[in-house]
């Protein structure tokens, strides 16, 4: 959107985007469209494509805050600004990623490869600040300093690094909680589209029965599998909780309702200081939901 007074832009980093569709689900203007990429016979399924309508977008920034992969970015007059965050009208995801660098030894370098999204950078310096590259040159050298850089904003918190290296310096808490079930009796023959597009290796895997199975340990509940799944009801995803900064916001409640459930939203409202908001929104709920909570 180019106006004489202001310039707005929303850019999508296609390298980071997995096409999970969370942005589409929560966009209040229906400005984002996520479409399945047509499948080519004999090839693996490709992630869905995301298209943003410049005309519909109001550059509120809700999509950016909720993108687990940090693929979206809003700029106003060239500056990175998220309006809903600045005005405290929307929470941010909590990515609890801690690095205990005291635990880091030179062998930490291997952890780089553990990240499926290539977000971890381990660099080794000599005491005089010279960077050492190449695995071999690190060996047998004393007094080297190790620093771990993680692109936290783009991290969906799959915990794979922690899983693979339980003793390493990195500790990660998941953002999205929930459950993912595959009703294998509904799976079409030889279909593993979900597995093809899942960004986290190991969450979905094939067994000898030719069907896809789930290991929820590292699942981030992004939902891209559900989008590409050709069979209604074959894949069931429920999000139960989203870790986010505390905020009083109707917009967030709505988003939570869309991403998780009405139940999850009312639960959160009851536990938080959102009493008045809850009252003002009560009329929106069907009575049975009321009683359910």
């Amino acid at each position, binding site marked *: 959107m180019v*106006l*004489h*007074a202001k310039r707005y832009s929303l850019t999508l980093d296609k390298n980071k985007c997995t096409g999970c569709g969370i942005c589409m689900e929560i966009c209040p203007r229906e400005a984002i469209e996520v479409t399945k990429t047509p499948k080519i016979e004999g090839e693996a399924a490709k992630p869905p494509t995301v298209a943003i309508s410049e005309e519909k977008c*109001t550059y*509120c*920034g809700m999509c950016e805050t909720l993108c687990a992969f940090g693929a979206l970015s809003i700029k106003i007059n060239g500056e990175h600004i998220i*309006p809903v965050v*600045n005005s405290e009208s929307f929470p941010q995801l909590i990515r609890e990623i801690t690095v205990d660098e005291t635990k880091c030894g030179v062998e930490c370098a291997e952890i780089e490869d553990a990240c499926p999204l290539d977000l971890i950078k381990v660099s080794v310096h000599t005491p005089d600040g010279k960077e050492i590259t190449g695995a071999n040159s690190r060996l047998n050298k004393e007094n080297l300093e190790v620093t771990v850089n993680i692109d936290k904003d783009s991290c969906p918190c799959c915990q794979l690094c922690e899983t693979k290296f339980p003793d390493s310096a990195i500790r990660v808490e998941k953002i999205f909680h929930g459950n993912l079930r595959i009703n294998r009796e509904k799976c079409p023959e030889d279909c593993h589209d979900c597995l093809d597009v899942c960004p986290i290796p190991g969450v979905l895997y094939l067994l000898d029965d030719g069907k896809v199975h789930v290991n929820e340990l590292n699942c981030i509940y992004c939902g891209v599998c559900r989008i590409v799944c050709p069979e209604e009801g074959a894949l069931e995803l429920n999000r139960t909780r989203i870790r986010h900064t505390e905020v009083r916001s*109707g917009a967030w409640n709505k988003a939570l309702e869309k991403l998780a459930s009405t139940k999850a939203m009312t639960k959160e409202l009851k536990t938080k200081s959102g009493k008045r908001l809850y009252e003002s929104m009560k009329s929106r709920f069907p009575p049975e939901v009321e009683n359910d909570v």
Partner: protein
Amino acid sequence: MMSEEPRVGVFVCHCGLNIAGVIDVKELIEYARTLPNVLVAMDNRYTCADPGQEEIRKAIKEHDLNRVVVAACSPRMHEPTFRRTVADAGLNPYLFEMANIREFASWCHPSTPKEATDKAKEIVKMAVAKAKLLQRLETMEVPVTNKALIIGGGIAGISSALDLADMGFKVYLLEKSESIGGHMAALDKTFPTLDCSICIEGPKMVDVSRHPNIEILSYADLVSVKGFVGNFKVKIRGNPRYVIAADCTGCGECRDACPIEFPNEWDENLGVRKAISVPFDQAVPLVYTINRDYCIECFKCVDACGARQAINFEQEPEDIELEVGTILVSTGFDIYKPTDDSRYGYSRFDNVITAMEFERLILAAGPTGGKVVRASDGEKPHSVAFIQCVGSRDVNKYEYCSGFCCMYALKNAVLLKEKYRDDVEVYIFYMDMRTHFKGYEEFYRRARELGVNFIRGRISQINEDPKTKNLLIRAEDMMLGDPLELEAELVVLSTAAIPSKGADEVSRILSITRGADGFFMESHPKLKPLDTSVDGIFLAGACQGPKDIPYSVSQGSGAAARAATILSQPTWKIEPIIADIDSSKCRNVNAKCGICVKKCPYGAIKALENKAASVTAAMCHGCGTCVAECPTDAITQMHFTDAQILAQVRAALEENPEGKILGFLCNWCSYAGADLAGTSRFEYPPTMRAIRVMCSGRVDRDFVLEAFRQGAGMVLVGACHLPYDCHYISGNYKMKDRMDALARIFEKLGLSPERFRVEYVSAAEGVKFAAIMREMTEQLEALGPEKIKAENEKLRPTLDKMLSRKRKK
């Protein structure tokens, strides 16, 4: 009603020598005395002068006259005068009839005094025949609600509202957008004085909001209007702002809390406003509005509003019902955006903008803080070209001149020059510089003296330099006759003012007409420029055609004064020349008819199922279209009854019918055109015998049939021009449909086609009327009486059959 024997007095006027110079008045009087029921006939040098009028009054008393015929000038001239004369003598004014022997005889047949006198005799005879059947009519009075509704809160509507409110009338000011103010509130400076627009309009807007007699109904739409002059019932839908107007203090804390911005239409979408906001700081009423299309419902505004609790997301549309006596329409105009014209590159090239967008850029309170910058790079342009007549004066787009564009282009050029001096070069491409009105020409000179470059010529194409985003303008310099190419960093298009988007709906709801250009039509372009065709509804400002600010303000005040003529009266008189339905004859009682309802241009007739149709007297304008259309002759038009008109037809055709043209002329155009032919002394053969009807829509098929049954040589129906000239909206169309069908019947029956004719003659077309008369007379003579007689004989049995119903009466 009139069982008494008619006692007619005929008064022939010499009009100096205007009549007596051609017509043998003595012979005419002698003739008049021989007519049945004529008790007295006398002449006077000037009947319209006091002594002449006194003579009529005396004669009424002396001879106990109950009908008066004055043979003099056109009824369009002195009918009201003589109606008053007879009323003074105690006679009902509608028992008066005029015989037009000046415009229709002496003036148009000066070289054939014998024929002119014969024609005058028959004109008097026709008048007496009608006079005998005239009925007493009483003027009706309806109560007046002394409140006014003004639709549209621009500067015209504001002026009307303040004037009416100051006169002591209650005023409802309806505005569809969030704030009153209209276009004027969005302008920067105003020509030619360069005073700041909002600085002069703002106080007026505040006056409106504070006036105890004015109620602003903003952010609301007109739903329906029923009723008639003095008694309109109006339904309005108030749109939800989601902010309670009474509780909103206009502090703006909600706006500061709101995270969402969207393009501000008020800023021509050059800037943004919050999802909860006012369009501009001076908005009246100062009540915030939530745009639910953009709102994400974070409810931060609810928190910010706090204890004031002015925000209510549950607000529903509100239905408002009003009763008012008059309605003023001041719905203004829209601005054409030339997205459909590729020559200008508007919307394709960043640096081509409209003049309204320029206003918002140069305005200190605008989105750029008064900096004129280019959209492509945010830089100040060093050369600016204004292109005039974009859409206006273009036969392919809007044919009319938008009036104020020359002046605002000059104004913007002067502002640029005064702001940036030699740092900016300004060009104006124009066709003609139109700088009439006070102080405008002087302003034009000021622009020239400041070094603005004027290039006379229309542009042919604007292209963009892809690198610099500058515009390359191709045009022809008409002064030199050479093609020209000019590079400008910014192009400003002076686009046409066009009828507002909602004009169509307003015209439908109010039953007021629009011209070919889409703007509302005034009742008369010269003498009733503020009235509409509907009594009690008036026009002000640019809704009637593009107008600048002083013109709009004057019209606002003028329309207020027009409305006050009604509002200041306890009751309002309504002309009794209206339609009346005989419920015992109405077909709608037994069948589903409703033809009259469909044909009435004013929606004045209602026909409920299994009930006789009924006319709302105050809404009826007396065109008589329904009367002519009624299949059972259940409707009568007062003062123009079937019996009266048929009596005129028979009187006109009693002698030598084959040699005559019987004309039915509508009062407003063709009769007036015929009058003008007389006034202009255009001579034509004296073959025509004219019958005046208010509207050509009144001309019943039966009248034409009866004329031919009586042996008429030719029949002419004269109407106002299609499509928009009819003074009763569409009476001429209804007549056309009816007569087209009739012409087909005549063709089958073997009538020579030239013997039946429909013509459209305006009040200005005296020449055309005379030409038609000459042409028809030639044709009449070429056919010859024998052929006409033979055709008529052949026709007669069919006509007898077709008219049997009428003769039974």
